């Protein structure tokens, strides 16, 4: 009798315990990430610890196990993995990905809006830069939370610029000159041509652009006044004149001998090693390159390299600009509101200034929230401080539009054809227009 009573008590106790304890397994998949980006998932682990502690103080038992995966090969493999997992109902609870995925994934129902779970008016989300929050939203709904930010500057090798006759003061004033449209892509052509002629850099290395497709190239379209998206109608925009001039710029660069005709497809490692050590006069890249250049042996970034916005196309044409391509935390549809709620809470905590700053500085990205400038780690980092003030206020993003991927691939394909001399810029733009109007139909405005 006594044993039976004991057993019953034990059973009740176990049941009560089981009812009180909440166990969650949260998986984070992070796209486009390397070792340096470990805080994309470690921040979620830290958040889980905090959330568990908070629950314990309330007298609840909350157990969260965080799993993560980041080594997917490339963006394409990562996106395939996420979409196929979501189709099979096996999606990870949290995904760190490009903001461009919001449009297709929200329509497909793979993700749920974070605004279903989080108070956007409360700290820390209230403190996130409004333009970044905007980039993580689509159709007026807040789908994601910005995980990091960056921007894509134009770089100058100081020593070569000095050899061209620029004084140190003039080099320091370049960011301003670029911003005001006084130093344009036409000056880039002139200076780079002279640098090659003077033998400062090898032929084809006057201007050494990104070696593969990426958001960077849309910047040069914007440099010539091109717009990617029309806010009023929600449609993508093809500006024929700007597109032609953008293609023409790269054709001119090849003809002037400052950019190689066969530059596209160059090995990334070779390219990094080259630009980090004075192999090129000018190039463009991302704010995260700062960390990479250090690893390539450039110990004196500020002494050797100057950076600015991407220059305007020409005097009175277009504008100096830079594109930010933030990654975002997205919560996937698990068919279980409680799980999604926990995932959202974790993402919210991971966005707190101190935690996000760990990622920003470790991976040489920029802050997502205003108050990160007050976090010592951020404030004391020379690059974060400089890049945030020079670049971020001018940064715009690519549009969240389901068809933007098609647009951007076609734009790149046209640029490649013109760059490599297969087509003239006019032919390439004509083909681009034919292609996009057929595929996108109503979703495109041609100007």
């Amino acid at each position, binding site marked *: 009798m006594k044993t039976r009573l004991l057993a019953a008590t034990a059973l009740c106790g176990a049941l009560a315990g089981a009812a009180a304890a909440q166990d969650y397994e949260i998986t984070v998949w992070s796209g486009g990430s390397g070792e340096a980006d470990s805080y994309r998932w470690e921040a979620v682990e830290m958040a889980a610890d905090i959330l568990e502690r908070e629950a314990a103080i309330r007298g609840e038992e909350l157990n969260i196990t965080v799993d993560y995966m980041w080594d997917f090969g490339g963006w394409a493999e990562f996106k*395939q993995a996420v979409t196929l997992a979501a189709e099979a109902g096996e999606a990870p609870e949290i995904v760190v990905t490009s903001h461009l995925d919001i449009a*297709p994934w929200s*329509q497909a129902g793979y993700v749920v809006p974070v605004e279903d779970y989080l108070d*956007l008016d409360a700290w820390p989300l209230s403190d996130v830069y409004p333009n970044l929050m905007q980039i993580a939203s689509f159709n007026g709904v807040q789908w994601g939370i910005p995980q990091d930010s960056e921007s894509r500057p134009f770089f100058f090798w100081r020593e070569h610029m000095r050899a061209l006759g620029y004084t140190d003061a003039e080099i320091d004033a370049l960011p301003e000159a670029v911003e005001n449209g006084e130093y344009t892509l036409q000056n880039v052509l002139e200076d780079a041509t002279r640098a090659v002629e003077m033998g400062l850099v090898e032929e084809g290395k006057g201007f050494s652009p990104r070696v593969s497709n990426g958001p960077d190239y849309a910047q040069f379209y914007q440099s010539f006044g091109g717009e990617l998206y029309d806010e009023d109608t929600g449609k993508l925009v093809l500006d024929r004149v700007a597109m032609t001039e953008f293609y023409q710029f790269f054709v001119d660069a090849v003809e002037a001998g400052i950019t*190689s005709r*066969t530059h596209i497809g160059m090995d990334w490692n070779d390219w990094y090693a080259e630009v980090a050590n004075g192999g090129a006069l000018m190039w463009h890249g991302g704010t995260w390159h700062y960390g990479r250049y250090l690893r390539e042996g450039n110990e004196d970034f500020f002494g050797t390299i100057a950076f600015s916005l991407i220059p305007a196309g020409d005097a009175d044409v277009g504008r100096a600009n830079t594109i930010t391509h933030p990654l975002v935390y997205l919560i996937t549809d698990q068919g279980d509101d409680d799980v999604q709620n926990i995932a959202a809470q974790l993402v919210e905590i991971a966005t707190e200034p101190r935690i996000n700053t760990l990622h920003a500085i470790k991976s040489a990205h920029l802050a997502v929230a205003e108050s990160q400038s007050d976090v010592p780690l951020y404030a004391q980092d020379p690059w974060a401080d400089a890049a945030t003030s020079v670049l971020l206020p001018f940064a715009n993003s690519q549009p969240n539009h389901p068809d933007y991927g098609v647009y951007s691939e076609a734009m790149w394909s046209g640029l490649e054809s013109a760059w490599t001399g297969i087509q003239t810029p006019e032919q390439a733009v004509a*083909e681009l227009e*034919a292609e996009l109007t057929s*595929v996108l139909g109503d979703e495109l405005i041609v100007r």
Partner: protein
Amino acid sequence: MRQDRIGLLFLTPALIAVVVFYLLPVVMTAVFAFTNMSTATGIRGGDWMLTEDGLRDLREAGLPEETLTMLEGAGYAVDAAGLAALEAEFGASLAERVRGALEGESFASRRDMERALRDLRAPELRVTRDRKRAAELFLRSTLNTRHATPESLRADLSAAGIPEADHDLIVEEAYTGWSWTTRNFELLVSLPSTARYAVNTLMYVALTLVIFNVGLGLFLAVSTFYLPERTSATFRAIWFMPRILPPVLYVLMWKWLMWDTGFIASVLAPFGVDRINWMMHSEVHAWVAVILINGVVGASFGMIIFASAIKAIPQTMLMASEVDGASRWQQVRFIILPQMRWPILFVTAYQTLSLLASFEYILLSTGGGPGSATEVWAMAAFRTALNNYGGNLQYGLGATFALVLVIIGTALSLLYLRFFNFQALLSKPRIER
């Protein structure tokens, strides 16, 4: 009868493999090809959700302005129905409080509604999740709500007072999934790029096949046939090596050979030849590279098949011809080649199909460039369906690309069989007739 059954039993694994690995994918490709399926539409089917973007499209589609205003402006309303629901869920005291502070008010956005509730500082609404649940009770807008069925959306629209006549248009616009269409085929016909991919594919398959897979393969087989056994075996083994190498490594070696920092450029540099990227410098360079890279791998396949076929030729025939004073060339021309019809048919048919569908060496070497000069059909299918930096993969259009390959491949196989007189090859030897 029993033997028939055993025969069938033996065939079963092969039949299953054919169905699972060939028929099923082909049927799926054909089905996908007639849809507008993409990442955005999902694969399993869709829901019904009206969005801001959908409203813009509806305006263009001619939905009455009045209805649009109702849809756009509905937002959140603190009305009697909402308050009753609030009372049922959170109790009378909160309902009373909300009634006193907010009754009759309406809010354009969820954020505004939640702010208003938050400002009440009611104890029942202190937790974010509860506040959101309460706000939801006053939601009168049909925007951004996912409905699993069209009926559910219609019910929502009716509740919001949207005229019945407009429902069809709205429901159609709100559908998030894929639908049947023949548009992909129209696109294939009309896009300027597809014509180029078709021409590229034709060039790629024809040149690689004729020059290397069959031509060089045959040459190697015949020439090694006349070498001493050991030498010919070594020689063939060397030619076989590219096939054993992983494609990534194999192409990397070609890059070391051909790039502007590579072997060819370095060797020629002292002779005053400009360092150029021999793989990518122009369209012609890229084509030569693509065909060489594929051909060197492809030739070994033909070589092995042809060499064993030659070995099967009775030695006596060759000896007899030598007695008759035939030269080597005459032996090849009148004894070997006539007996190679079947292996040549096999290699041609097999390699045509595998070249049509393969693009890995192109992807790894030129990446389809410069421009899209060496982009072939199969690669376009891959890029369209599975590779997009912007994220929206076009499964439907990609499948249409692939389906065309299946059709062309099947048609070519039939043509080859006819052309090489397959029937005669399989007929009984005359002596047995």
